[in-house]
């Protein structure tokens, strides 16, 4: 068993292993899990493996919960969502998310709701080893009311009052990237969103990649995560589908459109989940 967090010690490098084994080892019942990706590089295959393994009672964190979280919520694995924008980008609502919030189906969903700026800074604080972050935010809105993770601080120099948000340190962060080398160093490029912060804030890190390569070649916009800051890497070509991986695939917009009618109906969703996730393993195993 791998047991490694942010404070890596001598001898640790990211293990390269099959996705089912990595998920079984790293993602546990009751965990706070961040699966990040801003439209791009969303780790769908890893989420489907979580669904297949029935890892449950999860607190899911994500700036933009989209179809991937709709599926996890609909599967009944999620007790709480920490987020800032929950929709199907360019299409509309997330119906499984709405059904859980509005009707408690298949189980009630607790919400910890922020703005994007607040969520981004919560990850920044987590990655920085600080208990909170400061921002100009939330003033005058109803978001701050009743949230246990939004407060205020006063500037000791100017006396000005600013918003404070609590650090977000997921038990495990899961991301998808384009490449890793055999030492588990990870390379991603294009829109890389808040992934570096979500990774560095987490206790355990699982990265699925399009491809394991002999050598990572530096490239414009490339972000490297050293292998010693990653717990496990799994090679999962197409692991971001229906999201995309710049340089490997394009976004499957038809999938996102098709998700709307599927997800509107509980039975249709349940049948879809069984056929496309629970009874299917091939895509995720190598």
């Amino acid at each position: 068993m791998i047991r490694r967090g942010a404070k890596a010690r001598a001898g640790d490098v990211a293990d390269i292993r099959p996705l089912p084994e990595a998920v079984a080892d790293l993602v546990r019942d009751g965990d706070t899990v961040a699966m990040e990706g801003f439209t791009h590089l969303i780790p769908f295959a890893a989420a489907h493996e979580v669904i297949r393994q029935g890892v449950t009672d999860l607190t899911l964190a994500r700036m933009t919960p989209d179809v991937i979280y709709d599926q996890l919520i609909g599967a009944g694995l999620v007790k709480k969502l920490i987020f800032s924008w929950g929709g199907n980008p360019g299409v509309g609502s997330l119906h499984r998310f709405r059904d859980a919030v509005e009707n408690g189906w298949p189980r009630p969903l607790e919400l910890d709701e922020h703005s994007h700026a607040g969520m981004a800074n919560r990850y920044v604080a987590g990655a920085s080893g600080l208990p909170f972050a400061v921002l100009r935010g939330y003033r005058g809105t109803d978001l701050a009311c009743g949230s246990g993770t939004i407060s205020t601080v006063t500037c000791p120099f100017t006396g000005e009052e600013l918003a404070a948000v609590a650090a977000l340190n997921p038990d495990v962060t899961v991301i998808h990237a384009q490449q890793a080398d055999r030492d588990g160093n990870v390379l991603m490029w294009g829109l890389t969103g808040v992934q570096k912060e979500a990774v560095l804030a987490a206790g355990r890190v699982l990265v699925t990649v399009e491809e394991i390569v002999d050598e990572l070649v530096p490239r414009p916009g490339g972000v490297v995560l050293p292998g010693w800051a990653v717990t496990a890497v799994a090679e999962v070509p197409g692991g971001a589908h229906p999201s995309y991986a710049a340089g490997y695939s394009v976004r499957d917009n038809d999938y996102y459109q098709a998700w709307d009618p599927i997800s509107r109906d509980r039975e249709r969703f349940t049948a879809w989940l069984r056929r496309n996730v629970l009874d299917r393993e091939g895509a995720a195993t190598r």
Partner: protein
Amino acid sequence: MTDAPESASPDELMTVNAARALAGARTCFVGIGLPSAAANLARRTIRPDLVLIYESGAVGAKPARLPLSIGDGELAETADAVVSVPEMFNYWLQAGRIDVGFLGAAQIDRYANINTTTVGRGPDRPASRLPGAGGAPEIAAGCGEVLIVLRHSTRNFVDRLHFVTSVGHGTGRGDRERLGLRGRGPVAVITDLGVLRPDPETAEFVLTELHPGVTAEQARAATGWPLRTAAHVGTTAPPTAAELTALRALTNA
């Protein structure tokens, strides 16, 4: 250049006028959907140098077609710079560096406060859950000024918001200063019927322009509060053929 064909739809009138509102902007923080369509149209017509900034990290994106999401690959590929999401919100937005924030909304009230969180559906039904805040609260707070574009109906233009997600002018003129919000706040709401702008004294949004053929009565009927009209209500110039051609090329690409 000839006038537009008669077939310009209300949505097209809305988007064309929203694009025109960017004539004086150098930089625009672009929400997805209607704002993105308007900002991209502005780049093709009135403001070719407009710097489009998407919260996904693209600074100076120049997409050839309208992006479906704020994370489309083309935004990064065509950008002057791609930055991380925390950098975008902290260094670029929060610092007050962006001229115009362009937002959509599910609901607004007379002070152009915005709700994108949750909407009541009456005593017997649970409140309807909307996507939530996204980048809007800090876009509304921190940009030099804010434009809002949305379709005009009593569902959207409400007397009282169920939830304040993003602050426009709060409870009236002076409220932004009291809250310490640094930008000037919303300066126009552009709809499929016309344009609303804040009263200089009260910051209440009043009808200042109607699209050709629309009446003030129609606008009042589509507004959930007693909509006041400016002393002089103008008529927006009809879309030019160039504007409509560019818009249709953009949305059909």
